[in-house]
C-alpha cells in the first residue's frame, strides 16, 4: 500500500485516496473554439511515460482535496506532491 503525502494532511495510506488520471490537462476555456482534432486530443489523449509522471490524486477519505503528484512509474516512488493550481515542479527522476 502506497504512502502518499497529501499537500494538506501529510503522509497518509493509499486506502484514503483515489487516483485521478494525468495532471495538468486543463479544460479549454472555450471548447467550442476547438476543432475536432484538438477536442479529441483534450478529451482522450493521455501520456503513459516510463519514469516521472504528473498525475492527479484525490484525498477522498481525508481532506477530500484534489492535488498533483510526480510519481516515478518504474519505482512507484513519489518525488513530490503539490497543490492543484501549482505549476509542475521542474524535476528529474530520482535516478536521473
Amino acid at each position, binding site marked *: 500500500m502506497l504512502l502518499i503525502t497529501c499537500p494538506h494532511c501529510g503522509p497518509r495510506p493509499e486506502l484514503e485516496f483515489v487516483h485521478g488520471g494525468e495532471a495538468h490537462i486543463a479544460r479549454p476555456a472555450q471548447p467550442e473554439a476547438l476543432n475536432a482534432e484538438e477536442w479529441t486530443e483534450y478529451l482522450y489523449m493521455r501520456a503513459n511515460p516510463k519514469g516521472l509522471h504528473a498525475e492527479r490524486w484525490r484525498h*477522498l477519505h481525508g481532506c477530500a482535496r484534489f492535488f498533483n503528484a510526480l510519481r516515478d512509474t518504474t519505482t512507484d516512488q513519489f518525488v513530490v506532491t503539490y497543490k492543484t493550481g501549482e505549476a509542475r515542479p521542474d524535476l528529474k527522476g530520482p535516478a536521473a
Partner: protein
Amino acid sequence: MSAPFRTDAGGQIDRRKSLTFTFDGRTFQGVEGDTLASALLANGVHLMGRSFKYHRPRGVLGAGSEEPNALVSVRRDKARVTPNLRATQVELYDGLVAQSQNRWPSLNFDMGAVTSLLSPFIPAGFYYKTFMWPRKAWDHLYEPAIRAAAGLGDAPTEADPDRYLNRFAHCEVLVIGAGPAGLAAALAASKSGQRVMLVDEQAQFGGSLLAVTDALIDGKPAQVWLDETLATLAANPKVTMICRANAFGYFAHNMIGITERLSEHQAHPDAGAPRERLWQVRAREVVLATGAIERPLVFPDNDRPGVLLADAARIYLNRYGVKPGKRVVVATGHDEAYRAALDMHRAGVEIAAIVDARPYPRGPLVEAAKAAGLTVREGYAITGTIGELRVNGAYIAPIIAAGQVGQTETLSCDGVLMSGGFTPSVHLFSQSRGKVVWDETLETYLPGQSAEAERSAGACRGRFGLAQALADGFAAGADAARHPVTHSFAVEAVEGDPKGVVGALPHNRGQGAKAFIDWQNDVTTKDLKLAVREGFQSIEHIKRYTTTGMATDQGKTSNLNALGVISDALHRPIPQIGLTTFRMPYTPVTFGVLAGMARGDLFDPIRTTPIHDWAVEQGAVFEDVSLWKRARFFPQGREDMEAAVRRECLSVRKDCGIFDASTLGKIEVVGPDAAEFMNRMYINAWTKLGVGKCRYGILCREDGFVTDDGVVGRIAHDRFHVTTTTGGAARVLGMMEDYLQTEWPELNVWLTSTTEQWAVIALQGPKARTILEGLVEGIDLSPEALSHMSLTEGKICGVPTRLFRVSFSGELGFEINVPAEHGRKVWEAIWAAGQPHGLTPYGTETMHVLRAEKGFIIIGQETDGTATPDDVGLTWAVGKAKPDYVGKRSLARPAMADPARKQLVGLLTQDPAVVLDEGAQIIVTRGQKPPMKLMGHVTSSYHSAVMGRSIALAMVSGGRARRGETLHVPMPEGDIAVTVTSPVFYDPEGARVNG
C-alpha cells in the same frame, strides 16, 4: 511406546509432557515443544511424503520453512483441513491429526509411483510437447487428467468456519527475523525509545541460537543470553514482539504484510478464537535479519528418506532432542557439517564418515572432528544412495579430475546429512525491489542497492557466524533507529569458513541417475541440462520450462544449485545467467487471512434507510441497490412479485402509494455562484429557475454521454437541492468536486452531501394531496400554491420539511424530505392518515413499472454510457442558449447527430400477453440466421396492469423515425413481432400529474 530416537536430555522440549498424535492413521507420541517433523523423527519415521511428479518416497529435508518434502494436511474437522503445511512448522498438540499427501492408497505403497517408472518419458517440457494435438482434446481429455494428477493436497469440503483478524501497525523500526542478528538489531533499536517491532516465523524467538550448545555471548551461555535478551525486549513497552509470524510480503513504501498464527498450534482453541491475524505494518525503517537457508548437495538419489540437511539434523538433535539415525554419513562441501557431525558424535550417533568434496578442508571445525576421531574423506563426493523407503547405504568416490570420480565405495548407514553451504535469504529484500549482487568470495547473491528504507543484517547478507551476526545486527538496529549506540559482543564460538559448493557433484552413475535440484517440483540436473540443450538460455525461460523454483517453497533450497548447473551447461558464470524474481508470499498464506474480517455480515456495509425497519415489519422483499437494501415489493398473503406489483401499480394509479426514496443521492450546492456552477455542470439552464421551483436535471460527462439525472430544487437564490440516482451519488459528487476544485476554483460555491440528512417519502397518486393536507403546517398544498415541479419549506407532523411536488409515476405526487431521525415517525403518520384513502406501500419494482408506463428513463437501464440526451429523448432539457456546459462540445461532434443512432422508443408486442426479455436484441426482418444485423435492444420490459398488456422500452437505431414499424425480437423459440411506439404509454397528455 517411547520414541526410540529421542535423546535423554537437552533441547527446547518438555519430555514430561507427552502428546498423542496420528499420522496417516497411526498413533504416535511426541512431547511438548515438538514439531510434527521432530516428533515423527523421534519415532524413527523419515518417510513423510511423496514427490509431486514422480511420486518418489520423500523424507524430511529441513527443519524450518524451507522444507520442500514433508508437506502434510492437518485436519480438525471437515471444514478445517489445511493442506500443504510443512511438517517442520506444524507445532505438535495433543490429538493432532495429520496426513501425508500425493499418495494413493498409502504412503508406503503408492500407485502414482508408476510415473517414476515412466520418468524417462516425462522430461522437462513434457506437457508442452505432448498434449498439443488435437486441440479439442485439451479441454476434455488432457487438462482434466493433468489437473487430477497434479494439485497438491485436498481442500476442505465445507466453508471455513474460522475467524481471521486484521491489524494495522506502525513503528519506527521493524526487525524481521529473531535470530542473533535480529535480536541484536532489536536490542540496539529499542535503546532509542522508539517503537520497535520484532517478528519471527517460528514459535520461539532465537532462530539459530535455539540450537547452539557450545557458544558464549558476553560471557554467558548462548541460551542464557537469549533468555535475558528476550526479557529485556519484553520489558520495553515500546517493543512489540510477534512470533509465529510469517513476513510474507514486502509492499511499496515499507509496508510489510505479516500473517500471525494465533490458534493453529492449540489442541483446543477457544470457540470463536481467531485463527490468524493479518498485520499490515508500516515501518519507517526495516531491518531484514532473515538468515540463510542451507543448500543441499546435488548427487544421484539425494532425495531418499533419511537424507537431510546437516544443520537441520543438528537442530533436530540440539533443539528437539531427536537423533536422525543410528549411523550416518555426513556429506559436505562446507564446514558447518562438521559441527553437526561433532554434535551427533557426542550424542552417540555413529558417524560412518565425513565425505568432503573439497580437496583440502582445513580449519578449527575440521580439526575438531579429526581430533574427535571422526573419519574424514577429503576430496570425496557422495555419488548415490541405496534403499527404498529409507536410505540404507551411500556410495562415495574420490574426485579425480573436474567432473570425474574414481573407484566407488559403499558405506552402510541409516541417514545421510548433507551440506553445500548456506544461501542468504534475500527474498524480502528482492521483493522490495532491491537489486541483488553476486559475491565472488562467498559465491552467492547478496543484497545490493536498497530501493526502500531497509537494510539487511547477519547471514541474509553473508555475515555468517555468531560474532559477525550479532555485531552486524546491532549496528543495523542502531542505524535504523538513527541512534548512536554501540556494543561489542564478546563471543566465544568455533566458527568455520563461510564458503561452500554450488551446483552438482560429479558422479559415475550413468544417464539414468536422478540428482534432484528442486525437491518439491521434482526437477533434476538432467531437466535443466535438457532445457539448455533445447536452446533455452534465460533463467526466466528455463524456470518456466522446467518449473524449477516454482513450487510452493519458491525454490528456497534449489535456486542457487539450479543456477550452478545451468552455469556449467551454458559455460557461463552465474552472474551472467541472472536470477529470477522472488515472488511473495515468502511461505504460503491462507485465503482466510487475506479475506480477513470481510466475510458474512461484515463483507460489505449493508446500508438501510430510516424506514427500513418498518418495511421489514410489513414483510417487504428487499433488493440490493449498490450497498443499500431497498424494499422491492410488499407482498400480501401469498402474492408473488408479479401479483404484488400489479396490485401496487393499480393502487397508485387509482388511490395513492407510499414509497421510500431515501436512498436518492442528495447534494446541497450553496454559494453566490451556485446557479453558475449548475449551468456549467448540467445540460439544463438554471439561471431563470425561480426559488421554490424544481427542474429535472441531466448530467453528461465531458464526452457528451448521459451519466446521471435527478430533480433539482432551488431552495434559495444561492442554494440548490440536487438529487442524484441512488448508485450515482458518490460518483456525481466526485465529478462535481473535480470540476469545482480543479477547473473553476474561483467560483464561490460549495458542495455538501446531504444524502443521509434527509429521509424521503414519496407519496404518489390522485389522493396524495388529501392524505397530506391534515399533516402539514404552514404549507399550502393547493395546485395554485404548489404546482407540479415546485417545492416549499414548512413543517409536517411538527418536523421541518422540504416538500417537493414532483412525480416519477405520472400521478399527482409529493416527495417529503424530513430529517432522517424523524423519517419513520413522519412515514407512520402519513401511513395512518392514508388508511381511509387506500394508501398502499410500494417498492422499487412498482416504481420501475410506473415510470416505464410514462417513458421515464433510468440511468444505467436505458442509458449505458453511450447515450446522449437526444438519444433518450431529452433534447428539450438542454439549455441551448448556454455558451458551455460539461459535454456540450462533444455533443457537437457530427457522429452525435447521426440519425442512425440508437434512440429511445416504446415497443408493443403484437401478442399483448408476451413480456419481452430485457436485453433482447432487435432486428428488422424476421427469420434471420446469425450473424444478424442488430438494430438495438430492449432496455425495460414489464407487464403493465393499467394498460392491460405488456410494454417495453428499447434503444433502436433511428428509432424515432420508425414509429409504427414492425420489428422483431429474435428468441430461441422464434421471432417476436413488435410495433415501435412512443415511449409514453400511459396518459400521454400528462394530465394526471397536474391533478
